[in-house]
């Protein structure tokens, strides 16, 4: 096979779900924020007051876009911290209750959520039950209804899955939880979904919502946890008492400006971007499945997904081999989550969906984004099938 086919200097970026490029408008807004002295927002002098103003303007804008009270917006370092704060902050607030707090967490949550819940359960500070999903990865709402009890502490169901893009039935989840419990807190990880959904409408029933800037065209290192007031979060991190004593640490003012700008731009373009990206994704799916007839669409047709996600399982293919070859051809895709060493790990999402271990070895995720073009799709359709044929092994 010709290993020089596909110019590696040319990059086709189809890994927008991992992180999506910083938008120029966001970079400009952040540069503008940095163009004059910025103090610590807790100070009293002019640079401090300027920082505080930028921070609170960003908070107001983010609150409006999320349909929340500004007082419920807690700036964090990103999605993982938001998820940890949602889980441990809720548990800390519930610690005065007599019974051991109980967590319900969908089996397909991002590790930031799932591992937080498991850590809490492992330390004995909570009981955890994982909510099963069906073969499409959709949370079993009836099963969830059976698990919720009046004293359930927290229910975590993501808005859309980061691996498959499947949009979870959060509205039905909220109804099922509320039918059983008035006090259970509902947390939704909206990190992956945020680019393409109406956050205010789609997360309206949730008490806690996590968003991260770098999935939206904002910078890495900033996110929010939005909570319904009155606050039910006790601090998980101690210090100067910033963020109304819910998250200590000097606020990332420039990051907050970047997140607010990215969210505003995404909201303004949402409908048009969704249509355009979904059209390109569908073209990619048609092209790849036509050229690779046994490619398995991991999410069945008719199940709603984020517009940019195409998840395939390729029989007889080791994703590690495919991803290296794609990378050498300048095509960026993803095979799932990695452990500390950087090695790909078996997907807990696919396992929860009942995808066989052998099929999940050939799992590959293409995620399109705002910058994706028809040329990118054509290039992927030209590059992927011959490489799949080359790395495919017998049996």
């Amino acid at each position, binding site marked *: *096979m010709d*290993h020089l086919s596909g110019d590696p200097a040319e990059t086709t970026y189809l890994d927008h779900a991992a992180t999506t490029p910083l938008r120029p408008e966001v970079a400009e807004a952040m540069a503008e924020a940095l163009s004059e002295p910025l103090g610590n927002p807790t100070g009293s002098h002019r640079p401090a007051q300027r920082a505080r103003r930028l921070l609170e303007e960003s908070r107001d804008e983010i609150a409006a876009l999320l349909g929340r009270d500004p007082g419920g917006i807690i700036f964090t370092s990103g999605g993982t911290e938001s998820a940890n704060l949602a889980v441990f902050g809720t548990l800390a607030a519930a610690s005065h209750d007599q019974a051991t707090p109980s967590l319900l967490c969908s089996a397909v949550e991002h590790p930031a959520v799932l591992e937080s819940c498991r850590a809490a359960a492992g330390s004995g500070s909570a009981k955890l039950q994982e909510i099963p999903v069906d073969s499409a990865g959709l949370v079993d709402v009836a099963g969830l209804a059976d698990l919720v009890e009046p004293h359930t502490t927290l229910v975590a169901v993501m808005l859309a899955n980061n691996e498959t893009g499947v949009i979870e039935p959060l509205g039905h989840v909220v109804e099922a939880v509320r039918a059983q419990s008035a006090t259970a807190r509902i947390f939704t990880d909206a990190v992956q979904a945020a680019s393409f959904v109406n956050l205010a409408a789609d997360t309206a029933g949730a008490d806690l919502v996590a968003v991260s800037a770098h999935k939206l065209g904002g910078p890495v290192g900033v996110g929010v946890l939005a909570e319904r007031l009155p606050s039910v979060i006790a601090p998980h991190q101690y210090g100067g008492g910033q963020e109304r004593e819910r998250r200590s640490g000097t606020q990332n003012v420039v990051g907050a400006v970047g997140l607010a700008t990215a969210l505003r731009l995404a909201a303004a373009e949402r409908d048009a971007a969704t249509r355009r990206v979904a059209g390109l994704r569908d073209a990619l799916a048609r092209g790849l499945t036509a050229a690779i007839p046994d490619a398995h669409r991991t999410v069945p047709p008719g199940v709603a997904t984020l517009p940019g996600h195409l998840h395939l399982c390729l029989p007889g293919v*080791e994703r*590690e*081999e495919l991803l*290296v*070859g794609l*990378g*050498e051809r300048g095509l960026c895709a993803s095979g799932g989550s*990695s*452990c*500390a*060493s*950087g*090695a*790909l*790990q078996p997907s807990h999402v696919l396992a929860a969906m009942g995808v066989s271990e052998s099929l999940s070895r050939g799992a590959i995720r293409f995620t399109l984004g705002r910058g994706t073009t028809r040329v990118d799709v054509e290039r992927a359709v030209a590059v992927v099938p011959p490489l799949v044929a*080359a*790395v*495919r*092994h017998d049996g």
Partner: protein
Amino acid sequence: MRVLVAMSGGVDSSVAAALLVEAGHDVVGATLKLWGGESDSGCCSVADVDDARRVAQQLGIDHHVFNLTDEFDTHVVAPYVDAHARGRTPNPCIECNRSIKFDRLLARAGRMGFERLATGHHARVTGDGSLRLRRGADVDKDQSYVLSMLGQGELARVVFPVGEMTKSDVRAHAVRLGLRTADKPDSQDVCFIGSAEGRAGFLSRQLEFHAADVVNGAGDPVGTVDAVELITVGQRKGMGHGTDGARRYVVAVDVPSRRVTVGSAAEAVTSAIALPGSTLTWVDRPLGDGARAVAQVSAHGRPAPCSIARTDDGLMVEFDAPQRPVAAGQTVALYDIVEQDAVVGAGIAA
């Protein structure tokens, strides 16, 4: 030439990668994640992956981590545990070379369009037509024993860039290039066993230990051991002394009967060892009945001249002079009687 270098994060494979880059090859580095459990040594720790990745970055080559933990569990760890349960003495590094590095990884390299797989082993491949596997130039670091199962099919697709170098040459080269692994100590232990818990600690979580009687050659009880599964033929430690005050050695381990047989140095010898046919591999042509060879029974064991007797089930290695007993499960590497640095084949002691 497009070459995949298996980079463990040690100095040998770091320099192997560097030499290939300097020779102008199209080089990609890969580190294998082999063990999902806890370990602080060998090829499996995050720190070692970081070292390999950083060296690859210094050399300007791509680096990937391949997760072969399932295969390693199946083909290396599980047989290692099973062998101990049966009183055998396995060599997991050899099984990893046989089943992982020079089988699955080699096949993967081929599918990915690499012409060769390189490793940092101290060994050499020479000849064209019939390839020979030879000892590394540094006799103290020679690793031909742990590669002795390779055949022509594998040798044609592998390259051992540091095989011609001494270890001090390797380190000096790493220092010249400023590689962070230049002073890293050699790995000593089985990579999936942490140094804190050791073999006994690791195995204690994997299988049930049984106490056993220790008897002398006449069958008289002379003591007991707590875990017969941890006793190795040839072992001296913990076996005490005979009535004559001489050291005792383990002569036989019988797990089902819970019995360890010990003997004096004079009794703890063997004149021949059987290698079942199913375990035999040949670098090229097999040795015939009556052939002469040199046998090596451990990674740094002393080579022993021997004759080969073919049997219905494999062959017997008949030593010219009596040897310390060879534990069942140990690999016996056979070297050419004339060119004594060339591996001819290998088998596993019955």
